[in-house]
C-alpha cells in the first residue's frame, strides 16, 4: 500500500496545493475576517463589529430583499421554461431540430458583459428597439431604468434569457435517460400524453430538476454583473442592488473587508440551507 500512497499523492499534490491555497484557506479566512474590525491597522478581533452592523443595516436588508425577490420569481419561471424547451426539443415530431437547439442553447456561450451591453441598448427608453416595437403595436413605452419594478423585471428577463437554455441542456440529458418502454407501456394502457408528462416524466425528472434549481438559486444569489452593468450599479437608487453588489461595494469600493466578509457568509449560509433542503428533497423514500 505504501507505493500507492506515494504514487497517488504525486498525481494529487499539484492540484491539492492550489485547492488549499485558493479555495479551502479563503473559506476559513473569510469566516475569521467577518469577526474582525478591518478598517483599523492592525485588524483586531471584534466579534459583533460587522455582524452587529449587518443586522441593523437597511442597505443589507434592501439587498437581501431584492436578491430573494429575484430568486423567488426568476428561478421558478426559468426552470419551467427550461422544462418546456427540453420536452419540446426532445419531441420526435420536431423538424429542423438543430436550428431550435441553436436558438435556445446559444446564450450559454455569451459572456455577461456582452449580453449586458446588448440588453442595456435594447431596452433604452427612447431609442431602444424593445420600446420601439412596443409602441409600434400600440403599447406605451416603458421606462426600464428609472422605475424599480421594470428595472427588476429587466434583470429577471436578462438572466432568464442567459440561463434557460443551460438548464434545458441538463434537463434534456435527463429526459433522454428515461427508458422508451415506460412510455410505450403507458401508451398501450391509453394514458394521455398530458398525463404521461405529469405522472411519468416529471417524477422521473425530479432529481435533475432539483439539481437545476439548486444550481440556479446559488448562481442567482450571487448575481452581480447584470445589476452592475445593465441597471448601472443596482439602480434606480438601489432598487436592483443585490447581495453580490453590496459585497462588491463594501469590499472593493469602500475596502471594508470585514463587513463584506459578513455579507459573503450570509450568502454561504443561505447556500448551505438550500443544499440541505436539496438533500432532504432527494432522500431515498423509505
Amino acid at each position, binding site marked *: 500500500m505504501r507505493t500507492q500512497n506515494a504514487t497517488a499523492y504525486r498525481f494529487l499534490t499539484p492540484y491539492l496545493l492550489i485547492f488549499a491555497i485558493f479555495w479551502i484557506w479563503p473559506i476559513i479566512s473569510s469566516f475569521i475576517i467577518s469577526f474582525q474590525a478591518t478598517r483599523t491597522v492592525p485588524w483586531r478581533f471584534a466579534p459583533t463589529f460587522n455582524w452587529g452592523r449587518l443586522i441593523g443595516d437597511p442597505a443589507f436588508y434592501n439587498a437581501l430583499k431584492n436578491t430573494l425577490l429575484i430568486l423567488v420569481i426568476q428561478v421558478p419561471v426559468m426552470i419551467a421554461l427550461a422544462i418546456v424547451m427540453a420536452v419540446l426539443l426532445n419531441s420526435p415530431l420536431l423538424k429542423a431540430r438543430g436550428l431550435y437547439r441553436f436558438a435556445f442553447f446559444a446564450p450559454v456561450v455569451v459572456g455577461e458583459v456582452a449580453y449586458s451591453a*446588448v440588453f442595456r441598448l435594447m431596452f433604452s427608453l427612447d431609442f431602444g428597439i424593445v420600446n420601439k416595437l412596443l409602441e409600434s403595436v400600440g403599447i406605451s413605452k416603458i421606462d426600464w431604468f428609472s422605475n424599480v419594478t421594470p428595472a427588476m423585471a429587466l434583470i429577471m428577463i436578462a438572466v432568464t434569457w442567459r440561463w434557460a437554455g443551460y438548464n434545458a441542456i441538463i434537463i434534456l440529458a435527463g429526459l433522454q435517460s428515461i427508458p422508451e418502454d415506460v412510455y410505450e407501456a403507458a401508451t398501450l394502457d391509453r394514458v394521455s400524453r398530458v398525463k404521461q408528462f405529469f405522472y411519468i416524466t416529471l417524477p422521473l425528472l425530479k432529481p435533475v430538476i432539483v439539481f437545476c434549481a439548486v444550481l440556479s438559486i446559488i448562481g442567482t444569489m450571487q448575481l452581480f454583473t447584470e445589476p452592475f452593468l445593465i441597471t448601472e450599479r443596482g439602480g434606480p437608487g438601489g432598487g436592483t442592488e443585490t447581495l453580490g453588489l453590496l459585497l462588491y461595494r463594501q469590499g472593493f469600493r469602500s475596502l471594508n473587508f470585514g463587513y463584506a466578509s459578513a455579507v459573503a457568509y450570509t450568502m454561504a449560509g443561505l447556500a448551505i440551507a438550500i443544499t440541505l433542503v436539496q438533500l432532504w428533497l432527494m432522500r431515498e423514500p423509505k
Partner: protein
Amino acid sequence: MTSRSQARLGRVIALHLFLTPLALIWLFPLWMMVVFSTMPDNGIFSPGIELLPHDNFLDNVANLQRDTNFIGAIGISVSVAVTYTVLSVLLTSMAGWALARYEFHGKGAVVAIIFGTITLPYAVVLIPQFIMVARDFALANTWIALIVPPLFNSLGVLFMRQAFSMMPAELFDAARVEGVKEWRIFLFVALPLARPMLAALAIILFLASWNNYLWPLLINSQPGAMTAPVALGTLIGLTKVSWGGIMAGAVMLTVPMLIVFVLLQRHFIAGIAAGAVK
C-alpha cells in the same frame, strides 16, 4: 387511419407554431447585437426601427479601439484562456486519475472536502483571494493573478475522476505487468482514452476563462492589464462613448464562441450535462 395521421399533423403544426416564435425571441438579442455592431451611432440612436445589418462594422471597431485598447485586451484574454485551460485540464485530470485509480490514505477526506464545499458560493473566497493575491503576493495586474487562482475549480477533478473510473482496470494492469511506470500509463494509456471527456472539459474551462468577469475586474483593473470583457465593461455607462463600438466588441467576444459552439456542440453539451448526470 386518416384521422390519426391528421391528429399527428395537427400536433406537428402546433409544436412548431409554439416553438418558432419562442426561438425567434431567443435569437433576437444576438441578432440585434450583430445589427447594432454594423450601425453608426447616429443610426442606433434614431427613432426608426432597424432590423437589418448595415456596413459600419470596421468603423465601429476603430471607434472601440479609440475608446479603449480592445485588440490588446483580446490578446490578453486569448493567452490567459489558453494557458488556464491547459493547466487546469492537466492538474484536474491528474487529481481525477489519482482519485479514480488508487487506494491511499486520506482519499475519503479529499473527496469529502471537494464535494462538501462545492455548493459554497464563490463570493465567499473573493475577499481573501483578493487580499492574498493583491497585498500578500503583490501580483495584481499580472497574468499570474488571472490564471492561477481560478485553477482551484474542482469541476474538472470530479469530471475526470468519473471518466477514469469507468475505464476497465485490465487496460492498465496489462501495462503494469510489463513494468510500465505509472506516469507513463497515465500519459500514454489513460489520457488518450479519455480524449472526448478532455475535449468537453477543455471547452467548458476555456469558455469560463474567456467570459470570466468579476475576478479579472477586481484584480487586473489597470488599463494595460485588463481582459477583453473588463475593458468592454469599463465603457458601459460612460456618456461620451461609441455604442456601435461597444457592440462591435460584444460581437468580437461572442461570435468566435458561437462558431466554436456550432462546430463542437456535442462536446459542449456533454460538458454541461455531465454536471447533472451522476
